[in-house]
């Protein structure tokens, strides 16, 4: 037994960390939320060049997958840096199309692997939304044993291509720190709305995208844009094989989301530890108070016991073990809850400033809860664990 990342895997994590640190992801996220997808799509290509989107695509289709351990490594980093976009969906779509095979796989998988296309996905049993469908070149949906594909305007033709009419691209687009408090922004938490971002309940004021994935539902995380897939679309595969491929894709989506949640929690903990060391009250750093320390220690505990579950699930996925689905579900419960607990801790220990949009922290704070619930709620995952 050697239940540790090897040197190459650790180096992969380090190189992604360096790439993402240099990419100024908070600015990318702000842009993404405001409808300016250009920087996000540029980052998407760079992640593809680093190999991220090839990890779940079979070799026969231009990928290097499936490599679950490396996928976990990558998605922890993506979560830690708060990268926006249908990352999980694109990886799961790779698993789905790889399982189905045929012309759709031939057409889309090499492009997914190379990062020249962005794909979103909705699977029966996992909630009704396709994340960021307005940016996607294709939205895949599985209902019963039917796989449908809706082509979109997407971002495949280059950075900036996804910006449809009504999307602010010129001066006035928030780009700097504190941008979310620009003119017209609501002032409460969870309403970090720059100009042009849908603000109404239910998203009724959302901007129309060129080929119309419809109006997005507003997420508590403004950088997550939720679309109900349009009915229709082209049936690209049908039969029991689709059902099976969808099951595998769902498991991978749960798995990658768990990794993202863990990374998100890590970032929240790290930021909070740094804050309580420098924030002084009563003449001492607030981080020297036992109540503060213990809350942070418990946050670390949650994350450090989610991590082995994540990598244990990765090993089971790699082995094709029959218990892999339950192992992934266990990892998702633990990572989702630990990431959310980290958000609660971060909010509490930052005090009032944590409850604002003044800090980049707000992006991670608002993402932890959706990651906990996306691609398998805690309750659904717990049921999966007991189902074996």
């Amino acid at each position, binding site marked *: 037994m050697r239940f540790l990342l090897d040197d190459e895997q650790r180096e992969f994590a380090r190189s992604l960390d360096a790439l993402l640190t240099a990419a100024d992801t908070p600015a990318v996220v702000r842009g993404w939320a405001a409808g300016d997808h250009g920087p996000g799509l540029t980052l998407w290509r760079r992640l593809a060049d680093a190999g991220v989107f090839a990890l779940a695509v079979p070799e026969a289709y231009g990928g290097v997958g499936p490599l679950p351990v490396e996928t976990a490594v990558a998605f922890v980093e993506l979560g830690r840096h708060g990268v926006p976009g249908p990352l999980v969906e694109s990886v799961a779509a790779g698993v789905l199309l790889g399982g189905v095979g045929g012309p759709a796989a031939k057409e889309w998988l090499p492009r997914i692997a190379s990062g020249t296309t962005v794909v979103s996905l909705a699977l029966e049993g996992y909630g009704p939304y396709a994340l960021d469908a307005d940016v996607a070149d294709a939205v895949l949906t599985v209902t019963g044993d039917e796989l449908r594909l809706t082509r979109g305007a997407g971002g495949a033709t280059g950075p900036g291509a996804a910006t449809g009419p009504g999307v602010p691209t010129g001066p006035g687009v928030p780009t700097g720190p504190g941008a979310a408090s620009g003119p017209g922004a609501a002032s409460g938490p969870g309403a970090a709305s720059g100009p042009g971002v849908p603000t109404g309940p239910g998203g009724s004021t959302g901007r129309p995208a060129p080929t119309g994935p419809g109006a997005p539902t507003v997420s508590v995380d403004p950088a997550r844009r939720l679309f109900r897939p349009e009915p229709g679309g082209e049936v690209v595969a049908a039969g029991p094989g689709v059902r099976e491929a969808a099951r595998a894709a769902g498991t991978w989506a749960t798995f990658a989301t768990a990794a993202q949640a863990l990374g998100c929690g890590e970032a929240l903990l790290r930021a909070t530890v740094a804050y309580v060391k420098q924030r002084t009250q009563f003449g001492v750093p607030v981080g*020297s108070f036992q109540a503060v320390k213990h809350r942070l220690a*418990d946050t670390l505990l949650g994350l450090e016991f989610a991590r082995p579950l994540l990598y244990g699930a990765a090993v089971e996925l790699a082995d094709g073990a029959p218990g892999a689905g339950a192992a992934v579900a266990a990892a998702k419960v633990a990572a989702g809850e630990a990431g959310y607990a980290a958000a609660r801790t971060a909010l509490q220990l930052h005090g009032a400033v944590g409850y604002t949009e003044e800090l980049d922290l707000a992006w991670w704070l608002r993402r932890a809860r959706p990651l906990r619930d996306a691609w398998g709620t805690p309750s659904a995952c717990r049921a999966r664990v*007991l189902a074996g």
Partner: protein
Amino acid sequence: MDLAQTAETEALRTEAREWLRAHVPARPLPSLETAEGFAAHREWEAELYGGGWSALSWPEEYGGRGADLFGWLAFEEEYWAAGAPGRVSQNGISLLAPTLFHHGTAEQRARVLEPMARGEVIWAQAWSEPEAGSDLAALRSRAVRTEGGWLLSGQKTWSSRAAFADRAFGIFRTDPGAAELHQGLTYLMFGLRDPGVTVRPIGRLDGKPAFAEIFLDEVFVPDEDVIGEPGRGWRIAMSATGDERGLTLRSPGRFLAAADRLTELWREAGDPADTALRDRVADAVIGARAYRLFTAASASRFAAGAVLGAESSLNKVFWSGYDIALHETALDLLGPDAEAADGPWAEGYVFALAGPVYAGTNEIQRDIIAERLLGLPKGRR
């Protein structure tokens, strides 16, 4: 990254499973916190020793099998899955023995280890004092130099198993003039029935004498029972609280077996409509899996040469909280039957309640986590 066991570990597991199937008592032994149960558990230790299982990680010359951590973890999984009795010799085997391997003499190892592994000598830990709990370095019991040894005086307390045990190990102040509280302490062993020793059993919440106070009045300890150099007791004692011993205090096998029992109980007695309770059962299953994998990662790091320090504090806070939550879930599943003091989960529940307090309170563990793992500034405790 892999979780595959070597053929050697798997062979050990199979051998253990077969041996346990043939030897584990069909009916549970009486509680080991009673005189009758203590004696029965002592006999069980002898039987384990006969099979070569009581201390399998020790070298063969001391009656072990030279098993590595992975072998030990596999054995523990089989042991608890088989429903085998609690280990009355645990304090000796998991706390004193590693100290002897690291700091003792060959003579001490030859004299102490085998009777420990046979269950002939059961050891208790004598560390805490009325005024020195979490602040262990404040301890006052002293050892005064005399011809050929030391004279112990003072009071120790919360000593698990001391009501029925034979000998104890602990730290004592040998240099009251030392500049720092944790200097001038010496680690030594003494007999609980030696002249000058008075043991007063203390009933725990369910009334069983699970621990005791130990009063010492000029108890003679020969030099041969001092472990390591006199005056170096603090460092030796602290080395017994971290490192691989952090892994061996509570094995994952114990909780995997408990989670299996809980799942069985839920399938028998659980209301399928009660998803809140179902979620807690799932959390017990997830927690056992997390603990097993966390331990696998730690053991892998240890095997690769890493030093396991403060992460044993993560380990302790996790299992102690986990154990209580698991037992509370079982009690909730039992409903009105949970109240029965002789119920199948009652003893485990009472035992679990002490977890966050003993072996370093969870407050101290969280301070260690915050300061050593997160790098937060030290504060007043």
